[in-house]
């Protein structure tokens, strides 16, 4: 019974992916991609990865979807020039063969996976009590593979700097996006006044409960970034000029704190990002509390995009 359900979800996912690739209209492809990202959350739930399901729904379905729909709306007029450049039949056949070969090789690898499967779960379980957290994924992210999390946050900042560098010369250091405004008595402003308090509480809750249950700071900061974006779209707040000092300090404060704690680990415990015995839980909490606002601001600014308006009037 459950195998039929899994097979049904897999077929649905494939159908949505094929629709996203094959449909003629750009906007339809963007909408299909959002539905695909949301259905992937079901796949993660079936694979017993609830933390991954949360981040896929929030970032893969939600944030990426908003990005793609916004750009599809702006690029709507380019459909004609794009369809004039479609590849010929022989090139498409060659592409199909290449794609088929890659898929077949991956399928063969899936069927040839070793049984019993090698796993690191026993080692994680054995060493988790020293970290003081109950969620093994949080323990892996912030204690066993903390360098990966640090590098990931730094990659996000690099991407943000790259997006900022795409500003035209006249608006260097300005505000991202147009100035949105909506009818102050309209439904969007009403929604943007009601939802953010709820969203902020849910985001902080997901961040807090990630220590022992599925959740964590990536999922929580996505909620905060999304609530800020909603308020900005309704005109209740505006994107900050990226030349302001507080924006730049707030973006790097989290990773700097992370690096400082890592360097302190060199002095006290002998290796970069090592935690001295007994101080693991407080240090993990300190890193998470420092990273959360920086992460939310970075994600929100990545979504806002390159500056389009001058920052100083």
């Amino acid at each position, binding site marked *: 019974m459950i195998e039929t359900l899994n097979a049904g979800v897999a077929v649905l996912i494939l159908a949505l992916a094929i629709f996203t690739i094959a449909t003629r209209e750009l906007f339809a492809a963007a909408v299909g991609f959002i539905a695909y990202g949301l259905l992937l959350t079901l796949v993660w739930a079936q694979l017993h990865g609830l933390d991954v399901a949360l981040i896929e729904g929030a970032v893969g379905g939600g944030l990426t979807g908003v990005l793609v729909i916004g750009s599809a709306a702006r690029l709507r007029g380019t459909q004609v020039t794009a369809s004039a450049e479609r590849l010929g039949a022989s090139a498409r056949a060659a592409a199909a063969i290449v794609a088929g070969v890659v898929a077949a090789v991956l399928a063969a690898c899936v069927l040839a996976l070793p049984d019993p499967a090698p796993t690191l779960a026993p080692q994680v379980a054995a060493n988790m009590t020293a970290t003081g957290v109950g969620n093994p994924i949080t323990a892996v992210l912030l204690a066993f593979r903390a360098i990966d999390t640090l590098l990931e946050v730094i990659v996000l900042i690099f991407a943000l700097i790259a997006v900022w560098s795409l500003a035209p010369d006249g608006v260097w250091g300005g505000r991202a996006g147009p100035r949105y405004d909506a009818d102050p008595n309209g439904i*969007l402003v*009403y929604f943007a006044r*009601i*939802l953010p308090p*709820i969203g902020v509480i849910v985001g902080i809750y997901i961040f807090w409960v990630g220590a022992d249950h599925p959740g964590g700071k990536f999922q929580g900061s996505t909620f905060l970034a999304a609530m800020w974006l909603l308020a900005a779209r309704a005109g209740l707040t505006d994107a900050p000029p990226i030349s302001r000092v507080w924006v730049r300090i707030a973006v790097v404060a989290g990773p700097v704190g992370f690096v400082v704690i890592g360097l302190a680990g060199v002095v006290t415990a002998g290796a970069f990002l090592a935690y001295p015995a007994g101080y693991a839980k407080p240090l993990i909490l300190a890193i998470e509390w420092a990273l959360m606002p920086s992460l939310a601001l970075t994600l929100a600014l990545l979504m806002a995009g390159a500056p389009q308006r001058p920052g100083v009037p």
Partner: protein
Amino acid sequence: MVLDIITVFAVLTGAFFFLAGTVGLLRFPDTLSRLHALTKADNLGLGLVVLGLLPQAGGVSAALKLVCVWLLVLLASATVSQLIARAARQLHPRA
């Protein structure tokens, strides 16, 4: 046992309402009537699914979270359908 029967019945009825909403989406002639079908049927369908899942929730807080999910979806779908309807009205104004 009774609770399981309630769950199955409520979830199946909710799924039927989702199906009805999708049939409305596919068969109705224009945007406004499709929005009407989707909003009504999907909200009712989700409410029935949540009602069916309440006996299976592991405690009061989980049950309250399920009801919160339904209320938030209600709020979001009402807002979004009004915004889409206004945009559709501006694109295709009627006399």
